[in-house]
């Protein structure tokens, strides 16, 4: 970092130029990404050397977890108490809840196991909204093309087609579950039109929302629906340590760790849906994260060890506007709704430097460039750029109080007024673009194992659009839940155990990898709880 | 010597029978010298027997000093706490004794309305009391009393909510006014602002019963009933692991040993004595070290505990302090009125932790969490409910922590 501009000086520069005129990028998008995106930095990626995706480039921090040994052995599951279900859902966020509801409503007996508490997830934190092509000028095809383009044409077209085609139906389903959506100004509840915003990188206004806490509104409805749905057993504080297999290599459930009682529980199921979310809490490349506490890539580790293929695990999304100051809120997200509503990004010279509505990877790289080239703003040792909320309030009076409520609260928690003072922001680790490769029903390729939500790859290519994550988790939660229920009743697992681990260990040894590193991580290091140590004590 | 619970005086609602036994004498003496009532109560050393032990004459003097008219007396018979069963006995078996005491109090403080505030779940007491009140209404003493006070005396039977919290004095006031028994912050005390904003004397049933007897027999006689300087007698509600549980009227200052081993006829099945939860049960536990403690307000306070309502729940070897504590904290949690979240949520939280330890599902940090709550919670309510719960918790942790640790090891 080449220093930066002290906060007071930057504040004066911003005031002098407000509102700063738009300014296009001087670099080509390709060059900007190449030079400034964290994924492109030297040493960031290594090829995987064991497993179904050997040879695939992978973020180095993640590769270490993927190519590690299990936390448990066969002796650990002897005498463990056993639960049985048709479908086991691992993960209590949006995708897990949708999958569990869908499966249970077809008559399947479902166990939903979650590491924290039902609903604690990235879903609840999503602010911006959910994409669905409902506008008269919009179409499924435009949503399809926008998503592919934003992902640099690396996404799986069949998955994207499924995603966008489900969009309007997903919104109807969510309304049926009791989720509310904002309506256009002056619109009635019956026969009105939905409020639509234009997400970064889109060609049409397609982002539907509930205020600026869409994910919270969604999660509240889903959580309540799960709690009330007969046929679902919810196990809070039961992280999955390892998937179970039957004698033919089919996934047969999971070994769970009951945190309250400190013991192993086996959840055996005809089909298992992994909905464990992302990896922000790995703090890849040292970045702060907007993710919830549980986002430690557990599902990727478990699925990969059982033989599932991965894709684009070298691609992460850095949300452009994470909080850089104050330190106690570092990494928390300032919703993209701010930029979508017209808030500008301003550097230490009071100048704009990028089209704020460009895709997230471009905007994030542009901010990192400002900081790297000395035009960032320094405050108490933290560097960032301004998100000009006062400028937005000037152009659209009342907008902060009315539709950017969470953002206004956020500033207040940081000790300032968003209408007077701009946010100091810096990119924050936000989303895992890749993940477990799946088909249009969520099948992972391993019999008995499905995936839904952020743990999957292929839907977003190398960059996810705002609003496609909430859509994905409902669309593929429903697909996976229904496929799992249908399949579970056809197939009953037998001779359940950890047969896959022996081969896995042989492969690690063959590559000279240590068996001493254990995964999944379950909790980040600052959680002061090491599952391997805990297991050691229990044994 | 039995004063309140003498079988001969247990004549029920029959006022004529009560008068034939010398009933009404206390009130007559009071009427003869109204100014002498409060000094007599003071000389007798009577204190509030609903649990607080506040000197009765001071409360009376405070209400008497307030300007009338419109003052109230509430005879508090809400009695709902686990292990206490004395007021229901007095109200149903010897109601006139209680009424007479309440009338003496009304005269002393200049109140023309006396509310006999009863727990509606004590159906027998309510029925007998209604009958008893009807008989007083025709009695000439009542007319004399009205004349002395200068207002027409009204004697009301008020059934409250039956909720435990309704026994707290400000809650009793709210309940008598027809509202939900929410305790309020003090000051103002009911003596300043009570029913309908008027000065109100709130006294426990047993306290008022003693007051009538003090006027009848005189303060010196009364003081002489107690042991070791403590005045009068006390109703002890004895329960738990003793051979003969029940209501025992004994001299104030009787030793715990005497109560348990003589009057209670010893421990059930000869088990070793472990502890006593005093009523309650919201106080520091008494243990074997306290067996020779005189059961009176000052002696128990000096030992860091309280006499409370006089309920003595005896626990022997074989009975779990942890389970008892869980039961009582659970009672407080269920009965917290809801106004103060730290009380409602805090007692609930304590209750949840106790229940999981009890169920063999305790967690490593649970003891520390309980100790923290026992320190954090006191003072967090408008009334003393949460303080009582915290006290009994802290005491049981301190004295019987080993039982908690054993249950945690069973995990």
């Amino acid at each position, binding site marked *: 970092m080449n220093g930066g501009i002290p906060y007071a000086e930057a504040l004066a520069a911003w005031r002098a130029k407000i509102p700063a005129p738009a300014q296009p990028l001087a670099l080509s998008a390709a060059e900007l990404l190449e030079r400034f995106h964290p994924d492109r930095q030297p040493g960031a990626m290594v090829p995987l050397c064991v497993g179904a995706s050997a040879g695939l480039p992978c973020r180095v921090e993640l590769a270490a977890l993927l190519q590690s040994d299990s936390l448990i052995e066969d002796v650990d599951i002897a005498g463990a108490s056993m639960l049985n279900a048709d479908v086991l859902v691992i993960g209590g966020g949006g995708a897990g809840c949708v999958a569990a509801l869908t499966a249970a409503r077809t008559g399947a007996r479902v166990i939903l196991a979650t590491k924290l508490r039902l609903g604690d997830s990235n879903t609840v934190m999503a602010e911006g909204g959910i994409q669905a092509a409902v506008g008269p000028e919009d179409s499924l095809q435009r949503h399809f093309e926008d998503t592919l383009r934003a992902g640099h044409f690396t996404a799986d077209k069949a998955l994207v087609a499924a995603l966008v085609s489900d969009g309007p139906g997903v919104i109807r389903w969510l309304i049926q579950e*009791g989720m509310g959506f904002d309506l256009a100004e002056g619109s009635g509840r019956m026969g009105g039109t939905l409020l639509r915003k234009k997400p970064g990188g889109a060609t049409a206004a397609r982002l539907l929302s509930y205020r600026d806490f869409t994910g919270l509104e969604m999660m509240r409805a889903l959580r309540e629906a799960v709690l009330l749905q007969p046929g679902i057993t919810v196990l809070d504080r039961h992280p999955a340590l390892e998937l179970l297999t039957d004698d033919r290599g089919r996934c047969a459930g999971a070994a769970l760790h009951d945190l309250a009682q400190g013991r192993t529980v086996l959840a055996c199921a005809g089909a298992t849906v992994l909905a464990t979310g992302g990896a922000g809490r790995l703090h890849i490349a040292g970045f702060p994260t907007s993710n919830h506490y549980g986002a430690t890539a557990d599902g990727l580790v478990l699925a990969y060890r059982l033989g599932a293929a991965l894709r684009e695990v070298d691609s992460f999304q850095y949300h452009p506007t994470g909080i850089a100051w104050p330190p106690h809120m570092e990494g928390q997200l300032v919703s993209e709704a701010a930029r979508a509503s017209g808030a500008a990004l301003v550097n230490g010279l009071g100048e704009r430097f990028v089209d704020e509505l460009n895709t997230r990877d471009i905007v994030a790289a542009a901010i990192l460039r400002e900081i790297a080239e000395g035009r960032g703003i320094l405050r108490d040792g933290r560097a960032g750029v301004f998100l000009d909320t006062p400028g937005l309030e000037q152009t659209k009076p009342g907008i902060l109080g009315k539709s950017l409520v969470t953002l206004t609260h956020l500033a207040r928690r940081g000790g300032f007024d968003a209408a007077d003072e701009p946010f100091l922001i810096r990119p924050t680790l936000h989303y895992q673009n890749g993940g477990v490769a799946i088909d249009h029903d969520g099948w992972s390729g391993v019999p008995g194992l499905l995936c839904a939500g952020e743990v999957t790859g292929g839907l977003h290519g190398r960059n996810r659009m705002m609003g496609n994550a909430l859509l994905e988790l409902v669309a593929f939660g429903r697909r996976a839940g229904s496929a799992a229920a249908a399949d579970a009743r056809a197939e009953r697992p037998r001779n359940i155990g950890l047969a896959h681990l022996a081969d896995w260990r042989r492969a690690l040894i063959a590559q000279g990898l240590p068996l001493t590193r254990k995964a999944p991580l379950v909790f980040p290091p600052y959680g002061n709880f090491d599952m391997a140590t805990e297991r050691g004590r229990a044994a | 010597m039995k004063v309140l619970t003498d079988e001969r005086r247990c004549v029920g609602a029959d006022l004529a029978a009560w008068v034939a036994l010398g009933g009404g004498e206390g009130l007559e003496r009071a009427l003869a010298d109204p100014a002498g009532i409060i000094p007599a109560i003071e000389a007798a050393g009577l204190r509030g027997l609903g649990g607080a032990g506040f000197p009765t004459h001071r409360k009376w003097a405070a209400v008497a000093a307030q300007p009338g008219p419109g003052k109230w007396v509430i005879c508090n018979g809400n009695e709902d706490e686990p292990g206490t069963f004395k007021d229901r006995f007095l109200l149903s078996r010897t109601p006139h004794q209680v009424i007479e005491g309440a009338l003496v109090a009304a005269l002393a403080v200049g109140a023309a309305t006396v509310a006999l505030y009863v727990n509606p779940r004590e159906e027998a007491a309510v029925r007998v009391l209604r009958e008893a009140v009807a008989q007083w209404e025709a009695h000439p003493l009542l007319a004399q009393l009205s004349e002395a006070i200068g207002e027409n005396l009204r004697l009301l039977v008020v059934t409250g909510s039956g909720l435990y919290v309704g026994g707290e004095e400000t809650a009793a006031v709210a309940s008598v006014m027809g509202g939900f028994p929410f305790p309020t912050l003090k000051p103002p005390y009911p003596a300043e602002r009570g029913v309908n904003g008027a000065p109100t004397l709130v006294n426990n049933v047993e306290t008022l019963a003693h007051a009538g007897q003090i006027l009848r027999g005189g303060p010196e006689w009364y003081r002489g009933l107690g042991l070791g300087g403590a005045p009068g007698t006390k109703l002890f509600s004895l329960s738990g692991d003793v051979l003969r549980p029940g209501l025992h009227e004994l001299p104030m200052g009787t030793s715990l040993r005497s109560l348990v081993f003589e009057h209670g006829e010893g421990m059930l099945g000869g088990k070793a004595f472990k502890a006593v939860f005093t009523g309650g049960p919201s106080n520091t536990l008494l243990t074997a070290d306290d067996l020779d403690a005189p059961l009176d307000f000052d002696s128990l306070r000096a030992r860091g505990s309280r006499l409370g309502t006089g309920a003595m729940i005896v626990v022997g070897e074989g009975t779990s302090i942890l389970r008892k504590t869980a039961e009582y904290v659970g009672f407080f949690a269920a009965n917290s009125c809801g106004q103060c979240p730290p009380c409602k949520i805090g007692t609930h939280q304590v209750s949840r932790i106790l229940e999981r330890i009890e169920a063999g599902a305790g967690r490593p940090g649970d003891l520390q969490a309980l100790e923290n709550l026992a320190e954090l919670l006191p003072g967090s309510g408008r009334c003393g409910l949460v303080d009582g719960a915290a006290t009994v918790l802290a005491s049981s942790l301190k004295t019987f922590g080993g039982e908690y640790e054993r249950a945690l090891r069973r995990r």
Partner: protein
Amino acid sequence: MTESGTEAGLKVSLVFDGHPILAEAGASLLQAWGAAGLPLTENIGCMGQGVCGACRVLVRRQGERLAGTALACETQVEEGMQISFIDHFPAHRSHTYDLRTLTDSWTALEQIDTVFPEAKNCRHCDGCDRACPKGIEVQRMVNLAAAGQAFDAAALFDHCVMCNLCVAACPEHIDPAHLGQFVRRMSASLTLRPADLITRLREIDQGGQPVDFDAPGANPPVRP
């Protein structure tokens, strides 16, 4: 104040679940707990956004008599604080309904009363309002819902983060958090019928929204 008051790393001392902690000034309660090396495996979720309601605490500040409820991620450390984590209090699960069978809006009031019969017993103790870390008028919502004023009740629960503190606080077992969700969910599912969405769904049903994989926009631009 500690004597290191002039240094940059200002410290404050507090007691958290029985653990004496020396914390950085400006840290949240949750950060202070973690920084003290104590295990964080529950009562944690969004870590500061204040939307998940997982980190419920009772807090008593130095010199204050009454403790209060708060979210640990949103509350900053203060000298002399005493703090206890509060468990998640699940409701008794007795308030069951099936939104999908609830299709007749004429019966909305009856449904509220059938599913949440306790709502009409509100004793107006204000405990739920005092317990809510988001300042929601919980009691008013309960009263409005009991009177069948579903939209008004639903609007009051806009900012609910499902911490369930009101569930723990309510002496009548009304389960306000769940009642709030019930009226919100019922309002949406019974009355939200956007015409643009319905139009698009019809088009899709009639095959009018095909997705073409080979369209020029669905493939990388061909470089000349």
